[in-house]
């Protein structure tokens, strides 16, 4: 079987998270305005020409999600990005017109799994030796599917990441998600990055569950 690079995945200098081994699954969570989503975007950006990004957008249109990436890091190279757009928006302007699969219901998990697998292979065949995967967001997924099925979906996805030696980032809104659901999802991941916004102007994060990472609250400014 053809072996892929199993080296660690590094992150932008502005994010105080050390590189993680290939096959790592990360939960990124925090209150709604904490900046957790921005951290997840930063962690999912491709860092080398051999990396691609595959996004599952369940809580906003693929186009809008791509705009978030562009706003933070300049234009994301379109040939190395795939999006499974799972929103039910019929507004075609919201659709990403590049490498995209459209699912009209974030609860249609089998359809998402199929399109994810296909887009993954497309990226792997053409441009990306390694893929950064982002699920935006677990919160939306759990609100559209029963817990058992959604839980199995996330577990399967983490297993795929372990198997293929990629890295995945799962975003969850701690204000919306029940703590017990969050704990279950966290159990599937290797580590959890908690984000908070102290006094509304100082963003901080800490990493739980990963060796050698900052466990204390560390301030950061996302200037990419």
């Amino acid at each position, binding site marked *: *079987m*053809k072996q892929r690079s199993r080296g660690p995945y590094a992150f932008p200098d502005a994010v105080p998270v050390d590189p993680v081994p290939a096959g790592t699954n990360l939960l990124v969570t925090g209150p709604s305005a904490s900046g957790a989503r921005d951290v997840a975007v930063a962690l999912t950006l491709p860092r080398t020409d051999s990396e691609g990004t595959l996004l599952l957008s369940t809580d906003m249109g693929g186009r809008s999600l791509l705009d978030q990436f562009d706003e933070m890091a300049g234009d994301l190279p379109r040939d190395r990005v795939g999006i499974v757009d799972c929103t039910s928006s019929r507004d075609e302007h919201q659709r990403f017109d590049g490498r995209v699969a459209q699912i009209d219901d974030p*609860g*249609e*998990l*089998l*359809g998402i*799994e*199929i*399109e994810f*697998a*296909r887009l993954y*292979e497309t990226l*792997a*065949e053409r441009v990306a030796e390694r893929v950064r995967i982002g699920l935006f967001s677990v919160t939306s997924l*759990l609100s559209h599917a*029963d*817990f*058992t*099925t959604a*839980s*199995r*979906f996330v*577990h*399967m996805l*983490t*297993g*795929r990441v*372990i*198997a*293929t030696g990629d890295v995945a980032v799962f975003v969850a809104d701690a204000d919306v998600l*029940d703590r*017990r*659901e969050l704990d*279950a999802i966290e*159990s*599937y991941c290797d580590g959890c990055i908690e984000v908070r916004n102290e006094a509304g102007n100082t963003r901080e994060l800490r990493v739980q569950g990963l060796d050698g990472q900052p466990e204390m609250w560390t301030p950061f400014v996302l200037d990419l």
Partner: protein
Amino acid sequence: MGHGLVCCVLPDADEQRTVTALLTSELDVSVVSCSSIADAIETLDHRAVDCLVTAFELPDGTGTELTARLRELSPDTGCVLYTDADRERVTDAAGSAYLAQHVDSSRSRAGDRLVQLVDAAMRFRTNTAYPRHEDESDRIAELDRFAFDDPSLHAALRRVTELGAVYFDVPQTSINVVGENSLEYLACTGAEGAAIPRERSICTYTVLGEGVTVIENVQTDPRFRENGIVREMGIRWYAGCPLRTRSGNPIGTVCVYDEEHRSFSDTDERFLRLLADEAMAWIETLGTEGDRPAARALPEGYQ
């Protein structure tokens, strides 16, 4: 894990041969080859497989039908749909709660991907709908150290559940083993139950915790509100404590349930922990092969 067993249901003989050769050369597995749903069900009814790999188009139905059947028999078993069928055809044939991993068989790296997913599904049990204990292999190995067929053990555990029912004044208490794929009742007061899949069991989550788990309203807990078994049992309030071996592995639970909300004091928590300790002491004494003769030396009424 040790040697695994994969069931491959691929009607195309050439594809079957290719996939079988690939899996057996790359992984420590044996492959059972089947060509139809009927053929596969015959196998699955008699043999526990670690992973199912199936085409979508089968002579007597679809791979989604077969996988759904396997999920009924064994919800935690890895399932991979190996197909290039259109998404709409696959999703139309599947129920809303249906889920299996997917490999597009038309892709250049389909074989590699199949090997990777089958390997992960078997080694890490990544198809379960619930988190597993961080030391699950150790936990199961330690659980396998015990035998639970001694009537004296069941009688002793039954007394422990009765103590719980009297103290808490609840209709249902149970002592359970949380196995690799299912929860089995060792002793109950109130409704007797057959083994249930772990994904349907509240105790699946209790063994993940450090101490006593209390759920004030099971019916509104997002993990269980759509759980038919919990609804049928009429459980609203739940408290459970892990049964820990001497080395600290949680092999099961003692739990009490009520149909109504109730308070739970520190003293109540202490009593539930005592019940768990008592149950585990009996299991260590009467459930270990080497200690069995001791059971015969117990005073009359304790056997």
